[in-house]
């Protein structure tokens, strides 16, 4: 039932792949800036970074249309940027600025940009999966062929909301795509200590749902798997569960040195860094180093400029704290 989709890079135009590369660089640098700011104490609270997982966010979001929607977790910077949220407003939110995506009221764990269909980042494990049902239901109800995609972690597959959401999505044949980013750990716990099966896509069978396990570090593989699931969903054939195998290079959150990892594991995964993989693929396709460096440079500049802008924004106005409880 679970299958590994193989990569079909040939069909994706080079310009598009370069665009993905740029986006992955942006996200990577964005996350590194966040890391730095947290370390410097410029940003309070907690943060959960996704270096190493960029291919899942970018491949999946770029398989969606602008009118499709996406929800994700507290480790959601990448997904929200990949769906099209502006870098500066994302930084602004994390910095708690009034011009941040959510006016500074959400924070790192709740980046949301309805303008681009990034309907929310969720800090309670699994909480958005029932909500994704509703978003998908609205499309079905309104006769649109939009789909909604929800990202979540491997650890999230053990919480009740996951089960209720996948079951009902299947019974109602909703246009939803459930993308599990299996990065091998839930916080500090290796998946085997919390989950009795290894291939999480096998859980799809319990819901008579299509399921697949894919290489989450290959952006083209991710793109194609999501495109396929989206086509099925648009055709009224119901939801899909995709397990994308990937790895987070950093600890769970800023407090975590990730000492629980077996030696060598990180190194092995670094060799499969999704950016390196895509660059390799592009090189094979004839893109030279200069052009690749230019893409990276452009991304770095964009992030730096956005951060600069965001840092210059003022704090939220005090009275805004009382707004938006009710309409």
């Amino acid at each position, binding site marked *: 039932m679970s299958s590994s989709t193989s990569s079909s890079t040939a069909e994706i135009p080079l310009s598009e792949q370069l665009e993905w590369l740029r986006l992955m660089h942006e996200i990577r640098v964005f996350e590194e800036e966040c890391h730095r700011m947290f370390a410097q104490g410029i940003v309070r609270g907690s943060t959960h970074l996704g270096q190493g997982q960029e291919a899942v966010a970018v491949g999946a979001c770029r398989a969606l249309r602008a009118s499709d929607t996406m929800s994700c977790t507290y480790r959601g910077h990448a997904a929200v940027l990949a769906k099209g949220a502006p870098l500066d407003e994302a930084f602004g939110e994390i910095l708690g600025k009034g011009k941040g995506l959510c006016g500074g009221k*959400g924070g790192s764990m709740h980046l949301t940009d309805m303008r681009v269909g990034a309907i929310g980042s969720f800090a309670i494990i699994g909480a958005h999966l*029932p909500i994704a049902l509703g978003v998908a*239901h*609205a499309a079905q109800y309104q006769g649109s062929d939009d789909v909604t995609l929800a990202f979540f972690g491997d650890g999230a597959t053990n919480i009740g*909301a996951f089960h*209720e959401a996948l079951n009902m999505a299947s019974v109602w044949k909703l246009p939803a795509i459930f993308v599990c980013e299996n990065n091998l750990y839930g916080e500090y716990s290796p998946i085997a200590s919390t989950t009795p099966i290894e291939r999480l896509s096998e859980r799809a069978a319990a819901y008579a749902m299509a399921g697949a396990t894919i290489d989450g570090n290959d952006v083209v593989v991710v793109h194609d798997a999501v495109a396929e699931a989206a086509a099925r969903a648009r055709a009224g054939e119901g939801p899909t569960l995709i397990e994308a195998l990937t790895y987070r290079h950093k600890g769970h959150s800023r407090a975590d040195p990730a000492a629980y990892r077996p030696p060598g594991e990180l190194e092995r995964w670094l060799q499969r860094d999704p950016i390196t993989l895509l660059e390799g693929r592009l090189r094979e396709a004839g893109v030279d180093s200069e052009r690749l460096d230019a893409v990276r440079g452009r991304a770095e500049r964009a992030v730096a400029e956005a951060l600069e802008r965001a840092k210059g924004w003022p704090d939220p106005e005090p009275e805004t704290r009382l*707004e938006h409880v009710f309409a």
Partner: protein
Amino acid sequence: MSETVTYREALNRGMADALAEDERVFLFGEDVGASGGAFKITDGLFDRFGPKRVRDTPISEQAIVGTAIGSALMGLRPLAEIMFADFAAVCFDQIANELAKYRYMTGGQVTLPVTIRMSNGAGGGFGSQHSQAAENWLLNVPGLKLVVPATPADAYGLLRAAVRDPDPVLVFEHKHLFNLKGELNDPPAVGELGKAEIVRSGEDITLVGTQLMRHRCVEVAERLADDGVEAEVIDPRTLAPLDLDTIRASLDRTNRLLVAQECPPDGSWGASVIARVVGTQLEAFDAPPALVSAEETPVPYAGVLEEMWLPSVERILDAAKRTLDY
């Protein structure tokens, strides 16, 4: 023109009119469809509006509330049913952490015109887990409107107002009142959230109660009237927003306040009302405010015990007399 209907019929009519008024409204929940619901409140709606507008769900309350949230995000006006208010516990995160906070956390990017109906309250022998006044669990959660109708007219009017409201509204339907009869105008009036009703005017003491307790307060007022005491009875009708002004104004006239509620005292809406009023109107009180609550236990099953658990007319009357004699 008006007609006598039951609270149940009023709710049914309210849903029918809401569905007829707005294509974006859809009704869903466990067994709300062809079978007409566990309490037969949705009877006939499936036949009239069809399977798209009236839809059964699995036994998955988190999925139900999540579906309401997601659908509202995308412009629909979900009307969800949670069969018993006690089951708000199995979807409490969706209600208290997601639905209530979504608009705020996104800085106002979204509105959530969600209505959730639930059957509430004790008195029917349903036991500890099917008899609670669950609105009290949610008082401390900003972002929710809490509606507690006591009459057929309010059941209809406030349900319609809830569905039209741009914000999340929880409608608690009291099980013990389903067969209560009352007048409904034709066409029936759409209510307003946040407006208390002065059920009975009086100058001697203010009695505040919702749902079953509102009716008991009226009985108490009639008993007091036999002794020449005129009680004012106020039904807040919605606990959030709460129409404190009406209560305050009444207290200024009567100088005595009693709140009757079918839940334990701590963390209750009654305690909240008293704390608010006494915080600004201490001098208005000629006697300490009386809070007549249910026992500080779960709801017992046996009829004799459940009756004692609920504030009875006698118990409220005694408290009123003590307050009057103070």
